[in-house]
């Protein structure tokens, strides 16, 4: 696979399902703050255009009917997503996007209704957990990102949780835990480190004026740097 040397040249494909609603926010975040070209890809498409990375945005794909992400995982485009994932295409799923990646089995575990049974929208403290995340964009050990979900409680069996930790695949943990997720897990990646899933919304933390910080930019940079092998600082 071609190595990306600058995130400014990355062509991003953004998957839109019926009910996706953070799609525009991701486009604005990537376009305005990183100057990236973002192509929207409707879920019925069966071929991906030429892109270097995939974003699966948040929302309520198919109204969360059946199960969050359950119906989206069966959409025509997901066959293509599975195929390019095999070949090492970097993929990031945020909120409902994380749920979809889990339902597609590109990431382990499940996302269950929050322990207190209510939707929660707040600024959320997070601790970077990935040990390999020790250079470049990741200059802060703890960050704060907005969360907004009703079913964000990450769950996996003890063996899987142990494996995630051992293989250094927990992206960050909650501090404190807002939804009862196992091991305080807020986001994970696959074995290759190229497929990321997280409940917090980095696209909502791009500007001080709306989010009180710019920590979302750090997350995007870290994704492009680590998952793509690019250099965010160039």
């Amino acid at each position, binding site marked *: 696979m071609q190595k990306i040397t600058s995130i400014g040249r990355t062509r991003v494909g953004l998957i839109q399902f019926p*009910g996706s*609603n*953070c799609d525009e*926010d991701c486009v*604005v975040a990537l376009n305005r703050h990183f100057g990236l070209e973002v192509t929207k890809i409707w879920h019925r498409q069966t071929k991906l255009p030429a892109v270097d990375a995939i974003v699966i945005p948040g929302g*309520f794909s198919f109204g969360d009917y059946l199960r969050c992400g359950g119906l989206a995982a069966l959409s025509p485009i997901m066959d293509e997503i599975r195929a390019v994932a095999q070949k090492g295409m970097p993929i990031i799923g945020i909120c409902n996007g994380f749920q979809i990646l889990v339902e597609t089995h590109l990431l382990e575990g499940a996302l269950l209704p929050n322990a207190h049974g*209510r*939707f929660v929208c707040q600024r959320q403290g997070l601790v970077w957990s990935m040990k390999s995340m020790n250079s470049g964009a990741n200059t802060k050990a703890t960050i704060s990102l907005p969360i907004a979900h009703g079913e964000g409680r990450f769950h996996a069996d003890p063996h899987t949780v142990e494996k995630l930790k051992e293989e250094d695949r927990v992206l960050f943990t909650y501090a404190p835990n807002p939804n009862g997720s196992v091991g305080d897990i807020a986001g994970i990646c696959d074995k290759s480190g190229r497929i990321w899933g997280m409940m917090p919304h980095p696209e909502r933390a791009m500007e001080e004026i709306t989010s009180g910080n710019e920590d979302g930019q750090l997350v995007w940079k870290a994704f492009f740097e680590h998952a793509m092998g690019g250099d965010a600082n160039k």
Partner: protein
Amino acid sequence: MSKITFRDVTSIAKAFDAGLMPDEIKALLKRHKITDDEYQKLESSIGRKPTMAELGVFSAMWSEHCSYKSSRVHLRRFPTTGKHVVVGPGENAGVVRLEGDVCLAFKMESHNHPSFIEPYQGAATGVGGILRDVFCMGARPIANLNCLRFGKRTADRMRFLFENVVKGIGDYGNCIGVPTVGGNVSFDDRYNGNILVNAMTVGMIRENEIFKGFASGVGNYLVYAGSATGRDGVHGATMASDSFSSSSAGSKTTIQVGDPFAEKLLLEATLELLRKNLVVGLQDMGAAGLTSSSFEMAARAESGLYVELDRIPVRAKGLNAYEMLLSESQERMLLVVTPEKWPAAQAVLSHWEIDFAVIGEVTNGNRVKIAHKGVLEVDLPVAPVVDSAPKYERPMSSARKVPALKPDLPKSESVEKTLFTLLADNGSMKWITDQFDQDIGIRTVLSSRQGGAAVLKADGEWLGNSKIGVVISTACDELKCDIDPFKGSEHSVLKCARMISAAGGEPLGVTDCLNFGNPMNPEVMREISDSIDGIAQACRKLEVPVVSGNVSLYNETDGISIRPTPMIGMVGKIGDISQRKPATISASNGSVYILTPSTPSAKLNTAAYGKFFATTQSPKINDVDYAQELEAMDFVRSLSKESSVLGVRDVGRGGPLATLAKMLVSTEAGVEISGLSGDEGLFGENQGTYVIICSGDISKEYQAKLKHSKLQHVGRINESKTWRVGNEEFPSSSIYRAFNTSLDFT
């Protein structure tokens, strides 16, 4: 696609065969809430007896909910024009200019009756309905707000109603992806039998893209788009025009069921259809469903319509014409499309996976004809149905009794206990607002988290790199409205303007949702009329016109009416969002100032204080001094340029001390107040009053400008864990706990 051919319809005589006999009519009319006089008017305007379906059409269209028959003559007194107004009342939503060609479309609406019967669906569909009103103008919704009134926390069903209303609002707004950024809530036993659920949506639109639904052009297709029709909500409009009694608290079959996912698709499809100029008419099927949307569209276009109900997608078996016409199934739109553009329009609907069907066409003349199973069920001239709804000047009592002092109220004992009581009654909305996605759309700068007006960015696709922002507030001071509906309504409008000014913004326009009891009661009618005059007065003085609104009457159970609750929503503009001032600060050191009228006359008996503690005089609200209000608004707005000013909050329910506490909840700062004293000074509610917290001092230059107001330095905030007010000292933890646990139902 070739021209649709309609099957021949049998003569209307067949419908008359199954028609109505005079003695049956009486019982039917009662059920349809049509009076004998109204029936005479109906029969003479169509020249014969109506069919059953036609009776349903009249019942819905002439209902209080759809026709405003008790309030219309009074609503005319609102000022509705002004330099910022682009579209005034009469459309789905009002529109004011924000900057250049970028405008705000907004409206508030009630869903009180359904929410009391089935709170989750009632509240959810309230949000869905007001969103459709805004996006069927072509506007992209950017903010939702909600204004809630519940009964006493311990009242029957109240916890259930509260939790499910909140969940219903949250689930709908969160799913469709519009941030819920503001609103207000309070609890009072006068709402035990009628809770209020008012929802407001603000959208953005360019002036040349504002769409008004005209169904002109004979032969154009009438297209049904969205969810299938079921039996839900049949007679919703009529139900919303009736009182409850404890023996029959409404009927569940009149409740609509919401599907925010379907609405999200309908939203995107509608905006795309309008952007691509593919429709000539478009109307939301809201109250009275297909009936009101088709008749109103025909009325605007001054043409006729022919509809075949057999073509409508249905989700219930055996629906008859009457039910299909009156169903209030949600997430449905009626479109008018030219045959040339139909293929392109169809492609948009198909892309968004929306069910649709061509159900009729635009015809010559001025009649709406609706057929079902080969029978013409409705054949009515448009004008009588839409325009001839009765308008009543209902009798009003000449003057309203001033409510007497409440006996048996305890005396206030200490500053700490009084403050605790007031904050516990009107404290944190966090339990509610944490369930609302406030950040989606990435425009939210200030929201319910800070407690003042909401501020949203308007940059990007709307205003490029501009720092101009949208400011939104909602308020109703129903305690003052209960004492004096005119002055209480003035204060409700002023409160909204104070909130916008405190944030650093300027008001542009008003929407309202007038919630009252039974209009057949002359005292209630007096309240409605006085309240409208109060709103009109304040809007005129502030030069902020009313551009949209809604009236909800019959909020009465077993003869007990709600307090007069004219809910106000206001939108405004801030020139530079980086200068906005929050109503909750994040520092714990600074000076505390209070801006008041120069001859303060703070009152306890008309304040929240008077609800809980004994006061000496009967309640009477002073006349509003508009010169002072306007001066104070200008003053706090000008402070927004001062970086040393950390936060500004208008003094509302609970008076200055409670307002100060609310500004400090995020840091739980200590307080030392020496410049305010006595219960009047600490808890009294005055007009045009603000608490200002500064890191430094406000310069004398600023203060010298004031003619009608004065600015006093009254104390400091600090990092201690103590509140010192005059001679009293108490731990700050109890104060903030009162605020934070305000919504605990234990």
